[in-house]
């Protein structure tokens, strides 16, 4: 068999996901050794500190080796797997079977069956040649059935039911049997955790500490997702590093509301445009601060925080946003939000930001203290636009109370890079740009 191996091996390496990415973590393998794979078919999922993505196979063939374990982090360029291409590809999986068994099967089976085995279905051939009832890995209880509740609990907790000992009639697995496994008292180890979760919340209870009967129900969702952990790390690092201070300004959005109705775009696009203008006037806020290394950025690369629901949050960047009109910004915001939610962002989409806007106001909240997206030095928070009674002064200097759509803009800024006067001036500029829109 080895004489037939004329294949060549193609390496699958950890890809370079954008310039600043140095390493990545394998989240899940989509294939096993011996599987056939087509070029461009996803071979594994990886996660970098910028983005989670899929790695396409560089060639068609058979997976020969998987060299990196799930959850292992390796540097860019490291070989993660090898794909066997060419003549030997079909023979590769057979190599993973013990040679004597394959030989025995070839001897005891008629020629056509042996040919099948050589085609790459060794398990079938081995099972046929060996004792039929005691085939390896085959049913300790063939045709076992499970009740709906047992199936559901097993699926929720990743329990392999074939390994659970049943105490019901005829060895049937009952609800209490699968619950015993879930609670750690059973006869089978729980199956491997789903790849996006760090660890199971289920641990054997310490025998001396009986659980209080009135303990609140716990939703078992398996700990924090990878994205949540990364958000947590970034946010904590920012708070630990930056001298974060938040300044608010109240803005009359009457002109914006009128204009957005005309253009059919969101208020966020107007705030983005006003922010860009203010950044041009006060370039000290369009900057990076890395340690003592302060860099003013030429372009305004505007990050927009996009919620991914329960999964978390991502900040795709609109590069060279200063070149875009309100309508252009609105279209780009819509596009990046859609791509973020359908997980289509590339690594370059989420890096290079020089200033960030976050806009959670659609739920009616009115103020927040956003956390700066390091190494940027400022982040602007747009909350709900709410009609309020305000004092307005007419051209003759007469005061009256009017109903106006108001919002509170919050600017979190890094006191290491600038001072409060500048942040207040910046907010005043944003406000002026929004309130003085052409009617």
């Amino acid at each position, binding site marked *: 068999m080895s004489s037939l191996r004329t294949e060549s091996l193609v390496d699958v390496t950890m890809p370079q996901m954008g310039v600043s990415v140095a390493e990545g973590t394998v989240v899940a393998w989509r294939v096993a050794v011996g599987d056939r794979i087509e070029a461009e078919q996803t071979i594994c999922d990886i996660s970098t500190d910028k983005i989670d993505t899929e790695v396409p196979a560089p060639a068609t063939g058979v997976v020969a080796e998987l060299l990196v374990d799930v959850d292992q982090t390796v540097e860019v360029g490291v070989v993660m797997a090898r794909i066997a291409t060419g003549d030997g590809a079909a023979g590769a999986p057979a190599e993973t079977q013990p040679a004597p068994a394959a030989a025995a099967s070839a001897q005891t089976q008629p020629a056509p069956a042996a040919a099948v085995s050589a085609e790459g279905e060794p398990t079938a051939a081995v099972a046929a040649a060996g004792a039929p009832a005691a085939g390896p890995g085959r049913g300790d209880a063939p045709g076992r059935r499970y009740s709906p509740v047992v199936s559901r609990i097993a699926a929720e907790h990743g329990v392999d039911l074939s390994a659970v000992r049943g105490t*019901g*009639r005829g060895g049937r697995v*009952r609800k209490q049997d699968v619950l015993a496994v879930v609670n750690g008292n059973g006869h089978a180890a729980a199956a491997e955790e789903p790849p996006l979760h760090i660890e199971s919340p289920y641990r054997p209870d310490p025998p001396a500490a009986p659980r209080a009967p009135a303990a609140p129900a716990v939703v078992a969702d398996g700990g924090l997702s990878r994205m949540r952990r990364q958000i947590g790390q970034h946010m904590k690092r920012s708070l630990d590093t930056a001298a974060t201070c938040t300044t608010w300004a109240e803005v009359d959005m009457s002109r914006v509301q009128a204009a957005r109705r005309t253009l059919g775009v969101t208020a966020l696009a107007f705030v983005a445009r006003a922010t860009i203008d203010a950044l041009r006037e006060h370039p000290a806020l369009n900057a990076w601060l890395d340690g003592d290394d302060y860099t003013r950025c030429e372009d305004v690369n505007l990050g927009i925080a996009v919620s991914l629901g329960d999964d978390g949050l991502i900040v795709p960047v609109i590069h060279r946003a200063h070149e875009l009109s309100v309508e252009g910004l609105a279209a780009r915001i819509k596009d990046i939000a859609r791509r973020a939610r359908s997980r289509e962002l590339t690594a370059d989409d989420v890096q290079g930001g020089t200033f960030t806007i976050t806009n959670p106001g659609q739920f009616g909240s009115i103020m927040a203290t956003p956390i700066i997206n390091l190494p940027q030095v400022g982040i602007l928070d747009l909350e709900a636009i709410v009609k309020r009674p305000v004092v307005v002064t007419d051209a003759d200097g007469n005061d009256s109370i009017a109903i106006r759509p108001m919002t509170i803009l919050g600017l979190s800024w890094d006191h290491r890079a600038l001072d409060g006067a500048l942040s207040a001036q910046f907010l005043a500029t944003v406000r002026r740009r929004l309130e003085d829109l052409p009617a």
Partner: protein
Amino acid sequence: MAVMTYLQAISAALRDELRADERVLMMGEDIGVFGGAFKVTDGFAAEFGTDRVMDTPLAESAIIGCAVGAAVVGMRPVCEMQFADFISCGFDQLVNVAGKMHYRQGLAVPIVVRLPSGGGFSGGPFHSQNPEALFMHSPGIKVVAPSTAEDAKGLLHAAIHDPNPVCFMEHKHLYRRVKGEVPDGVFETPFSARVARSGSDLVVIAYGAMVDVALAATEDLEGASIEVLDLRSLVPLDEAAILDSVARCSKVVIVDEANMTCAAGAQVAALVAEKAFEDLDGPVVRVATPDVPIPFSPPLEQAVLPGVDRVKEACRELLAY
């Protein structure tokens, strides 16, 4: 609080309503001078007069038909069928006239039809039936079936106050066998289920006289934790309570004293199969009277009615599943 029998609780509810609300009146066979076949209305004619506690001809269609008319003009009539079995004679007035009046003409029909039901005392095929499912199948009629003295009073108050026709299934076998504390005065028991005993391994769902049977059968089943759910109301059926019990227990035995086919328990079983499928750890088991008339013969009657032994056996089988 006073300790009353189930029957005394029903009498007390009726008396309280007659005293409190002059729109309330009663109609039935021998309920006035004689005080009712079971003495539920004993002394009522003397206290309230025969205008409000009326003896009627032996004509259930007339009783219910008159009650519907009185209800439409603002009265709150309570009809007594001497035995629940006899309601077949008043079926059209109840199902077609009372039940559909609101739908057809927008008129409320606040009547209560009291149905002394159930067997267990050798009453034979005409005096032992449980016809509640017939009315569950007829839109526009509510159906309640208390199992305790307190619920008998509270559900009867709520039934009289309800703007819809209500069939009040009072179980004859419970009349003088069930006793309990009953709060004083007028109070309403909601048309919802009640956990008679909570448990976690298996739930027995029952109503009326079968609640006691379920409790007795599962008092000590080799230490298993058995819940007993008393439906109390069949229309409306308390889906949330049923599904909650099934979610916790995963095994279900449903007991009906009525004949098996299309009984109230069949509706409960269908509900569980559809909405609690993923909570089930075994087949939904029913215990009911087979589809035969109730025999006169005492041993034969005991053989067909669901008793403690049959419920026990069903629970044991399902627990071992």
